[in-house]
């Protein structure tokens, strides 16, 4: 698990340069509270304390990566309680949670602090010092994410604010745009994902099916006409990459069979596009993954591994 942590860390360092030291603080708060809640819940429930396995650190990092970097510090703390205690330990601890803890925390925070969670985005620093934002009131600097702009104002506003196609691709790919830490640098996420794939920690099935479904469906339905959407932009904007490589792939909450994984990934992609295009939120991958999570055990049940050979006379 520490490998995954290591893969996630570069993203944090880059985000410090893009958004300022604020991101580091919020991540630290999130990770620390996750560790604390993990220890506390394991103590309270009389279980062995296993913070060293790194799973709480991953959850902490992911919570910080999916919330706006400008939120009050209380939010990641409450998110940690939801993710670690309610989402994981009450259900039996590591390996028994049904939903991805970090995303559960995000959904919870989004419902509980709708304003902070939808408006505390920071614009890239563009040459300012990374400390320059400390202590400044947030609403003076907050801005909107590309997907939110797209949802409320349309593609023209996105181009105006973030640049024209194709320059916008490179801007997004490098992460120079407002967004959660984990949404920023597509480049680093892809690199980390490919590394994990090479090390065989993850397989290609889920990321590829998620991204393919998102790209394909956005291409078909996402534009003013059919087959007029911009698939590349859909993948680069929002948390699609982080979700596909690091969240949908969460071992505990994804199916194990390969066919099941492909269906699961496609489902996530389809729901993401559905929520993005028709839903009430600008970004849908968080909820798409949460919605597919409970299906993973069902899918595994339906697509059981093929037995070597059934016993003669059939299975009883």
């Amino acid at each position, binding site marked *: 698990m520490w490998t995954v942590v290591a893969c996630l860390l570069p993203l944090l360092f880059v985000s410090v340069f893009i958004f300022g030291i604020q991101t580091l603080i919020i991540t630290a708060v999130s990770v620390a509270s996750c560790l604390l809640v993990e220890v506390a819940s394991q103590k309270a429930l009389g279980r062995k304390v296993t913070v060293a396995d790194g799973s709480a650190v991953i959850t902490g990092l992911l919570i910080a990566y999916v919330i706006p970097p400008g939120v009050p510090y209380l939010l990641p703390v*409450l998110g940690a309680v939801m993710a670690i205690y*309610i989402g994981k330990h009450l259900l039996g601890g590591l390996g028994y949670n049904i939903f991805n803890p970090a995303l559960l925390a995000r959904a919870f925070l989004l*419902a509980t602090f709708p304003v902070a969670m939808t408006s505390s985005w920071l614009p890239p620093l563009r040459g300012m010092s990374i400390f320059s934002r400390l202590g400044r009131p947030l609403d003076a600097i907050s801005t909107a994410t590309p997907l939110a702009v797209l949802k409320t104002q349309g593609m023209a506003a996105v181009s105006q604010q973030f640049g024209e196609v194709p320059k916008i691709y490179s801007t997004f790919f490098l992460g120079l745009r407002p967004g959660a830490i984990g949404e920023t640098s597509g480049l680093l996420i892809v690199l980390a994902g490919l590394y994990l794939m090479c090390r065989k920690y993850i397989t290609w099935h889920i990321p590829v099916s998620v991204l393919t479904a998102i790209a394909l469906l956005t291409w078909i339905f996402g534009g003013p006409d059919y087959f007029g959407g911009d698939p590349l932009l859909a993948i680069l904007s929002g948390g699609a990459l982080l979700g596909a490589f690091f969240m949908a792939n969460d071992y505990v909450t994804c199916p194990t069979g390969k066919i099941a994984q492909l269906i699961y990934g496609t489902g996530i992609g389809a729901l993401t596009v559905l929520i993005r295009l028709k839903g009430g939120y600008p970004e849908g991958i968080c909820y798409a993954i949460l919605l597919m999570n409970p299906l993973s055990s069902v899918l595994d049940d339906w697509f059981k591994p093929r037995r070597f050979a059934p016993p003669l006379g059939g299975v009883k």
Partner: protein
Amino acid sequence: MATDKTSLQLVTNGILNENPIFRLVLSMCPAVGISTTVMNGFMLGVAVLFVQVFSSCTISLFKNVIHPRIRIPTYTLTIATWVTVIDMVLAAYMPVAYAKMGIFIKLIVAFAIITMRLEMFACKESVTASFWDGVGMGLGFMFGMMSLGLVRELLGQGTILGHDVLGFKPLLFFVLPFAGFFCVGLMMAFFNYIELAYRRAKRA
């Protein structure tokens, strides 16, 4: 067969030992859906109390005339009648509260708790006993709803019965509709915890 319990025992039984919400786990829909304030809990509690008491008394009164083969339809008819009456009364005299509770008043008709009490208790017992049992069950439901409402209103809005108590809003989460699931789950666990602790203390 007549119960040997006193009226007080019947009432406390409904509130504590056989609390419809936390013990029997019946009638959960309103407990999740509209337990956001104490007032809501109280209003629906009153409605259920009336329906329960009236139905219990009616069935108990007519228990000798009810043909056993049409027992359940008769119960349903009785409950539906009283629910309709309560529904109309509330709609007429308390339109604001009625609007808040929406469809739930009419749904009392499908509350398992009421049918269950008729089947288990009222069809065998005297009118008085049924009355007290109905009161107990209704109060138990009201108590459950109100305690849930208290927690959710206090933690969600910082108020009790609409009066500002805390002066700030601790956590919007608790008044959100879906939080009802968490609140009910946590409160049940809380009561379980108390019971376990109580039993442990008793044994020690």
